[in-house]
């Protein structure tokens, strides 16, 4: 009798595992978007709100022919080429010489039992080679350096992996943040980017959550660099919620969940946004 009960419990657990989980979340969201906007192809999600606004997309393309933020990217390249105190470079330290890796981040580090973002990996290199870590929110150092590193992965497909208990827990934490209402205005990320995609707040078209993680950093209004986690903090501020410190556990877990949603889409760092 006890064995039958145990077998039944096992079956129920298995069925649960098969019907839920990260891939199920991603596919369900894609199916919802397909119902909302049947004319948008999968690869267009990487264009964000521009996919829903042909005029804005045309304007974007013309600005990107001569990006007004080219000077910032040069600063990032200089930092990338500057050897660390040990004499080694970032290319010596990062996997695959730092090329075609951004789509693997954030990843879950089982040994440290936490999410590691690309910025964390850059800082790990710095610390391991005798330098102090950069502040995640410093656009002049980590910002421009991450802009260069991410551009080395342009064309790569987002391929976030969630494997193992710790990884799944971090993913679920990020998902919780994404769907939780926050701040005086009481919006969640999903209020706008799941339930109201394509609708306008004033003149701003709300974008798909899928694809949002593929194009960071962005440059606003010319050369103001904004990283993905800075954008999370800005969103929290707009919702009249106290933002977290960039690089903290909650934003890292959110970035892990959020980036997973973009799996299969092509990365393109450093884009202009209004």
């Amino acid at each position, binding site marked *: 009798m006890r064995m039958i009960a145990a077998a039944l419990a096992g079956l129920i657990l298995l069925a649960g595992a098969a019907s839920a989980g990260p891939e199920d979340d991603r596919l369900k969201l894609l199916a919802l978007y397909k119902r909302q906007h049947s004319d948008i192809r999968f690869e267009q999600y990487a264009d964000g709100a521009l996919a829903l606004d042909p005029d804005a997309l045309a304007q974007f393309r013309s600005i990107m022919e001569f990006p007004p933020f080219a000077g910032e990217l040069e600063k990032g390249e200089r930092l990338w080429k500057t050897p660390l105190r040990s004499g080694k470079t970032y290319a010596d330290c990062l996997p695959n010489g730092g090329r075609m890796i951004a789509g693997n981040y954030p990843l879950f580090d089982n040994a440290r039992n936490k999410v590691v973002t690309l910025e964390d990996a850059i800082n790990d290199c710095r610390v391991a080679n005798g330098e102090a870590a950069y502040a995640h929110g410093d656009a002049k150092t980590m910002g421009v350096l991450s802009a260069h590193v991410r551009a080395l992965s342009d064309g790569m497909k987002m391929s976030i992996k969630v494997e193992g208990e710790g990884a799944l827990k971090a993913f679920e934490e990020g998902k919780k943040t994404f769907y939780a209402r926050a701040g005086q205005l009481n*919006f969640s990320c999903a209020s706008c980017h799941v339930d109201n995609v394509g609708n*306008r707040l*004033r003149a701003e078209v709300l974008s798909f959550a899928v694809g949002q993680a593929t194009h960071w950093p962005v440059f606003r209004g010319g050369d103001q660099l904004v990283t993905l986690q800075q954008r999370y903090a800005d969103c929290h501020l707009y919702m009249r919620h106290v933002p977290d410190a960039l690089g903290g556990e909650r934003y890292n877990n959110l970035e892990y969940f959020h980036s997973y949603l973009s799996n299969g889409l092509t990365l393109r760092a450093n884009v202009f946004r209004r």
Partner: protein
Amino acid sequence: MRIRAIVVYCLSVYFLCGPVCAQQAAKEAPGKALVFGQAKGNCLSCHGLPGLGAELTGNAGPPLIAMQARFPDKSVLRAKIWDATASNPASFMPPFGKHGILGEEEINQVVEFVHGL
């Protein structure tokens, strides 16, 4: 130049619709400012409003039209503005009263203005 334009506008409003109209405008004015302004009510961020000089209105919420037909009971409209999630937990609308985004008197002013639309 601008002052002269304002004086001309005020005079024309006064002579065109007289004291009754001016009284009604005074009653509507604070609510309208809250509905149109971005700092507090910012209703037009999500709601369309045809006419009255409304610009760059959003469309995440239903347009503010035929309000008396939709809300014969003004208190139902007030309750929606105070906390829309009470009657619809999935509502996108911020709970203006419950979260103290607007004060009670400010909500009354918004209700007065919106109910006339």
